[in-house]
């Protein structure tokens, strides 16, 4: 069945060949050219294109391997100065490499599904389908998330060493996964380096395990960065990898805390004008112009990079405390998700695609119970919806809406009907004083979900009809990101409550 899914997804991906291409195509074409035609020492210095190489060395090597096959399709794409080159052969080649590289995701999923002992196999297949369809459009993400899933699969299996190694490899492909590193660190430390010694459950630090893990991680990093350290280019690479010159929010706000913060500031401006408060005049109009530059706030305090950094760490630390006490796989997964959330919600210059960092691990536990499932729905819908503006052309809207509908039917209906037998239990639970509260919450959540239909209606049609003269061009994007931000924030709070207040999940699962 999984093999069928693979064949099927290949068909539907090839069908997508003539669709819209994002700038990612040019980015990766450029990287193919750089790694193929320049010596290693120049990889991180080349800047003819604005899309300089800003991924860690393993990814550069990955591009180098791909570039070895590129001449089969079209040699021209490998010239560094051949900017914005898009022959059919180039595009077919790139799309094909994406599809082939996603085999990694496929085998990771397969491993994840076969190493577990979860009760309902169907649920997992639904998840497989959903994960598979989901990143279909985004370039090489499937490959990276494949490695990520491999590392999770090893963790689930109990093979902590391999889990750590895979994660180290992943970090050297794409450093955005650093956001998840704290959870990995604590989990591996507590679960692998500390071993239970006696019946009392006290744990003892195992130097042997610590060395195993530490040495293998260091070797991987040396493999990746070693040559560049020898050439004395480490500083240059790091400046490429961590460009702090960019602004707080991306041109289009990712639906996170800062989107709400900026929106709040906009609202305050209106009040300020009415009541004559003093304003930071330079800020008005800066944020919505869509430049990847600094952002000024008119009334609220300015936000610096280190503020966001501290906030992120604080929230991450909170989730790690519980992991420290109970380093089980389940807690590891949840704190991974919470780590992802914190960095997405409070991070500096977050790209909206980063929501996948939260959604993919979250989907793995979404089928466990109804509470988690509801949090997941809210996250998934607002997260996916916030990605809609990435595919902005009218021609593609049909495709994206159809894919989303299919995805919703398969995932949500499938999981929901499987959870139905558990729902009876929920009703039993809620016959105490809380019932009214949970009823109210349900209604609010449902209203929020239906709100997306109205939002799509507004951004798609109404806005164009009302403001035919092109006034307020930013309004659809702004309302989308603010509305989605509420959903993402809410699902984060909901998951945190479940995580911190819930009893030890393991026992609950066993008893049910």
């Amino acid at each position, binding site marked *: 069945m999984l093999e069928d899914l693979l*064949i099927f997804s290949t*068909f539907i991906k090839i*069908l*997508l060949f003539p669709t819209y291409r994002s700038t990612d195509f040019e980015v990766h074409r450029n990287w193919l050219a750089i790694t193929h035609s320049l010596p290693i020492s120049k990889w991180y210095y080349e800047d003819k294109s604005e899309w300089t190489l800003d991924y860690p060395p393993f990814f550069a090597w990955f591009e180098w391997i791909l570039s070895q096959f590129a001449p089969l399709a079209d040699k021209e794409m490998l010239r560094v100065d051949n900017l914005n080159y898009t022959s059919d052969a180039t595009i077919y080649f790139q799309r094909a490499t994406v599809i082939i590289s996603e085999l990694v995701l496929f085998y990771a999923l397969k491993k994840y599904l076969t190493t577990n002992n979860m009760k309902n196999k169907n649920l997992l*297949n639904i998840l497989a389908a959903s994960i598979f369809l989901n990143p279909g459009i985004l370039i090489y993400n499937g490959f990276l998330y494949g490695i990520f899933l491999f590392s999770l699969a090893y963790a689930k299996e109990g093979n902590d060493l391999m889990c750590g190694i895979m994660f180290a490899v992943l970090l050297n492909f794409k450093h955005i996964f650093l956001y998840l590193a704290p959870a990995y660190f604590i989990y591996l430390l507590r679960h692998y380096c500390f071993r239970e010694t006696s019946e009392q459950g006290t744990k003892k630090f195992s130097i042997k395990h610590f060395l195993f893990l530490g040495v293998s991680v260091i070797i991987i990093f040396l493999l990746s960065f070693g040559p560049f350290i020898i050439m004395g280019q480490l500083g240059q690479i790091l400046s490429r990898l961590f460009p702090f010159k960019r602004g707080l929010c991306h041109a289009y706000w990712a639906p996170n805390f800062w989107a709400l913060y900026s929106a709040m500031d906009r609202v305050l401006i209106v009040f300020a004008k009415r009541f004559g408060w003093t304003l930071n005049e330079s800020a008005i109009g800066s944020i919505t112009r869509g430049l990847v530059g600094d952002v000024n706030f008119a009334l609220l305090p300015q936000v610096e990079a280190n503020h966001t950094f501290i906030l992120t760490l604080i929230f991450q630390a909170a989730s790690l405390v519980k992991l420290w006490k109970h380093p089980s796989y389940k807690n590891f997964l949840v704190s991974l998700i919470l780590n992802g959330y914190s960095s997405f919600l409070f991070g500096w210059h977050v790209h909206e695609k980063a929501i996948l960092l939260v959604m993919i691990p979250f989907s793995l536990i979404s089928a466990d119970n109804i509470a988690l499932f509801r949090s997941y729905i809210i996250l998934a819908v607002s997260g996916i919806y916030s990605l809609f503006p990435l595919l902005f052309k009218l021609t593609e809207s049909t495709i994206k809406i*159809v894919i989303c509908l*299919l995805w919703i039917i398969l995932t949500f209906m499938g999981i929901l*009907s*499987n959870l139905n037998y558990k729902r009876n239990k929920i009703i039993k639970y809620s016959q105490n004083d809380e019932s009214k509260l949970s009823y109210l919450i349900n209604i609010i959540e449902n209203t929020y979900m239906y709100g997306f239909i109205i939002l799509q209606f507004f951004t798609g049609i109404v806005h164009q009809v009302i403001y035919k003269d092109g006034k307020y061009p930013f309004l659809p994007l702004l309302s989308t990101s603010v509305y989605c931000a509420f959903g993402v924030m809410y699902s984060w709070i909901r998951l945190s409550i479940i995580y911190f207040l819930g009893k030890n999940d393991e026992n609950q699962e066993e008893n049910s």
Partner: protein
Amino acid sequence: MSGSPKTVDYDEVVISNNDQVPIVVSPAEKWFNWLEQANIGKWSTVITLLFGIYVRWNVGLNPYSGQNIPPMYGDYEAQRHWMELTLHVPMNQWYYYDLEWWGLDYPPLTAYISWICGKIGSIFNPEWFTLDVSRGFESEESKLFMRSSVLILEYLIYVPSVIVFVNWWFADKSSKKRRLAVLFILLQPALILIDHGHFQYNSIMLGLTIWSLNCFFYEYDVLGSVAFCLALGFKQMSLYFSPAIFAYLLGKCLKNKSQGFILFVKLGVTVVITFVIMFFPFLDSIEHISQVIFRIFPLKRGLYEDKVANFWCAINIIIKLREIFEIHVLTKISLFTTLLAILPSCINLGLNPDKHRLIYCLANSALAFFMFSFQVHEKSILLPALPITLLILDESFWSSWFNNIALFSMFPLLKKDRLILSYFIVWFMWNWMGSFVQQDVKPIVLRYISWASYIVMGVIHFFDFNIAPPKIYPDLYIVLNVTFSAGIYLLMLFYFNYRQITLPYNLDEKKGKRKAE
């Protein structure tokens, strides 16, 4: 692990059915089994329909026929031009106006629908349909509009008709069979590629034909004949079906001794009224109506135009008929052979007018027309493909083989339209979903013949892509394609005639009984 429900692995589920035990469980079957087990079985058809939109839309992103190819462009421009024409030119000029530039040569219903589409399109942007100025107009938005008009009309007419058909045809079978049938029929590659790739509105004509079948199934014969007249009024090509429909209705009239004559009169009056209403604006003078008919049936053109996989084109390799005979002699020869070819199946249906036989007879009649009649287009293979696709689960080996050949025979056309990638994907996906190539069939030799035919197709494709044809025969691959396909069609024609004539006589009654139980 207590309390967990016992789950069965779907791969191991063998669904027993009354007709034949499938040896190969196709991916499509596994898929529906899986949906059933995931408790979302009732969503199956919705998923199929959404997936259908997905495939069609993606095919539609490719170029259409004649995109960016001045001066005449292609079929897309013809359809667009008719919208422009009906919108701005007075009705009595429709069949006269500047015939050199894609003059209207379809019956009036096409014109009316073009007019509606033009009206709606003008709301978005009147520039798409400005008279004369908009000739060869091409833009991203207008393409989007035209593509969605095909999709919407197909989902309004063709898709519901298929669902109703399947519900009647498989009324006594499992719901899984119905779901499978809907999936296979809606993903039939040839229709998707022609309508959404090449650009035409065949699905309207085919949908109206299925609606007339549905009416016949539920014994609304008068309504059914109206639907079929509408199909004729949309595209004259559906005449290929008319002998079968005529034989069926006539047979029914003759069989019913007491009510037969009344039914006959009713049907006759209905047909006349329907046609009069459709053609009413053009009935003001004999000259006008003869112009319309002359436009719709251009008998002055040759026996065939482009290379087409029928008898005349194939035999042309050996005997140059067009050089031996005058055109009016050829017309008579082709008329005579066509009549001869449809006669056995029509007589058989007329004597036993039952519903299962009707579908076979539709296939035979349309295929006979395709093989032997005058002025056949390669796209006309969609007509015999319709009834044969409807039989996809009853005759899965033959039906899928036919569809594969049909698509292959349109390859030269699709290659010209730059649709090669979609052609392969949609085609392979359909075959993969149904595991059609592994289908079991008796006698086994047929299976080998079909495999051999697939190998031949592969070889022709291979040469086509890799080696330029010799200069003396620039059309070598097309001629090979056409001759090969025509040979297989001839075999199919014999087979479906044989099937129709040996079909049991009580299938309809059996179905009625099982339904009642």
